[in-house]
């Protein structure tokens, strides 16, 4: 039976996310997992710079807001000082795969015992639709107006594939929230990523392909189609590393 009650972790703040945005679903999944594992009172989240910066408005647990791209470094300091606490980062594609690429790769390679929730919606949302490191080839953004790849932007950066070469990583999986089946699968992956940390197994990252109808300039229904038809082709779902 699906859980239809409120989680203890999410506050009742009114959402600031746009209609059709995937963040609300992903927040809910993370909250359900924290609830089910009974770890709210020992969990510390790190908020990124980007649409999810206001994470602390929604999550009823300790949160530290970081500079753009720095959550894996901040989480490293946090977790090393308090190894008995559960530390997760929640980051978008610009945060994790552009300005914070270095922090991501090295935290992963050190095998930091943290959980990373990586929301990939292929666009800079908060700043108004600029090209992200994960923007698809040919895709319009306000800084790739002829489509990505026409003026030396290079192809999209594939985080799970990139990190899968690192021996220090425990668990990498790419999921989505564009169909009910995907949502269930994403929750299973997120739960596993938290359980790995509880078990002291090391760096776990769950990438979640997510919708951004506003900056994609698509209806909410067409944004779901875009994830299912375009993004899943460029970013195949699945488990990339599992050493748990």
């Amino acid at each position, binding site marked *: 039976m699906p859980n239809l009650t409120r989680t203890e972790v999410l506050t009742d703040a009114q959402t600031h996310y746009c209609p059709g945005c995937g963040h609300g679903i992903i927040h809910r999944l993370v909250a359900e997992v924290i609830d089910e594992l009974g770890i709210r009172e020992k969990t510390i989240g790190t908020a990124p710079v980007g649409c999810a910066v206001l994470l602390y408005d929604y999550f009823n647990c300790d949160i530290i807001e970081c500079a753009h791209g*720095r959550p894996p470094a901040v989480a490293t300091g946090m977790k090393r000082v308090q190894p008995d606490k559960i530390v997760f980062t929640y980051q978008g594609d610009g945060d994790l795969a552009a300005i914070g690429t270095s*922090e991501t790769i090295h935290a992963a390679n050190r095998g930091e015992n943290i959980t990373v929730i990586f929301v990939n919606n292929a666009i800079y949302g908060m700043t108004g639709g600029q090209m992200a490191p994960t923007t698809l080839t040919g895709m319009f953004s306000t800084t790739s107006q002829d489509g990505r790849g026409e003026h030396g932007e290079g192809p999209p950066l594939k985080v799970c594939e990139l990190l899968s070469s690192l021996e220090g990583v425990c668990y990498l999986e790419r999921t989505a929230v564009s169909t009910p089946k995907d949502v269930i699968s994403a929750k299973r992956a997120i739960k596993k990523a938290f359980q790995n940390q509880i078990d002291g197994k090391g760096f776990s990252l769950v990438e979640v392909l997510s919708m951004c109808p506003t900056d994609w300039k698509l209806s909410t229904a067409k944004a779901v189609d875009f994830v299912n038809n375009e993004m899943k082709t460029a970013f195949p779902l699945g488990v990339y590393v599992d050493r748990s």
Partner: protein
Amino acid sequence: MAEAAVQAGCRFFAGYPITPQNEVPEYMSKRMPQVGGVFVQAESEIAAINMIFGASAAGARCMTSSSSPGVSLKQEGISYIAAAELPCLIANMQRGGPGLGNIRASQADYFQAVKGGGHGDYRLIVLAPASLQELYNLTMNAFDWADYYRNPVMILGDGILGQMAEPVEILPYEPILELPEKDFVLDGCKGRKPRVVKTLILKPADGLIAHNEHLQEKYKRIESELSLCEEYQTTDAEIVIAAYGITARIAKGAVRMARAKGIAAGLIRPITLWPFPNEPFISAAKTASQMLVVEMSHGQFIEDVKLAVNGQCPVEFLGKGGGWYPTEEIILEKIESMAAASATAVKGKL
């Protein structure tokens, strides 16, 4: 400095290799595990300062050290730490700049340390030791001031202090202040409401403007409570030298040599660069006929001296950047020429 930090209870160190301060992370990499602490060699200066941000918010006494180009990279994190009012210690063993510069001693990061460096209106407590014993002692005090004021503290040293060897008495740590409880620490919300450490404050009037006013009030309080300075032979001094750090130690030798030659020289050596000790300069400007600022840069510290002196006394300058350092003889020569010019001027008046 590293051992003083350990004695003071520092249990988290993150850093990145850069000359001339590598001895600090090297020492910490061995020492931290011995005392149950954590050493992380970060992938970058930016990561190192952000690890400090996390470790401080988690309640640890923590520090990072670097040298000029590395400290430039840390400025983003320093601004966030100051904005979030988290305690930590940052050491800068300054080297020649700008750019990659060189690895000789320098004092050209004065503006960066004292006036800002990162974005926004914030202040660091900045300490300038002139000997390794003082570096040891100030390092222990720095952790207390950081915790007491909930503010990052910077030790502004240089490549000479970073590389020299001299005897140091390893003193046990004793707190110099009654420290407040760390009620900001993120350690899970068991039995309390969740806490947030953040620096984004979107609302202006009752938000970011109020937060800035709160910070400024704290800085005013620090200015009124914390100011350290050494005065040497200033009571009857005609020519007062102003210098800090290792330069002041060299200048002290020059003062002795000048006195031996019958020139009434003295020295004011600020130990806190922020808050800047204005009072000794105000007093000296009334009694001395001239001042001389000596620094290993093309003139940064001199601006604060001139602000304190406020036109009440002429201020001469001796300094260069790029790895230049003054000898006692160079400073003495300058003192002698100032004394001679002064005598000529007096004769002219007669």
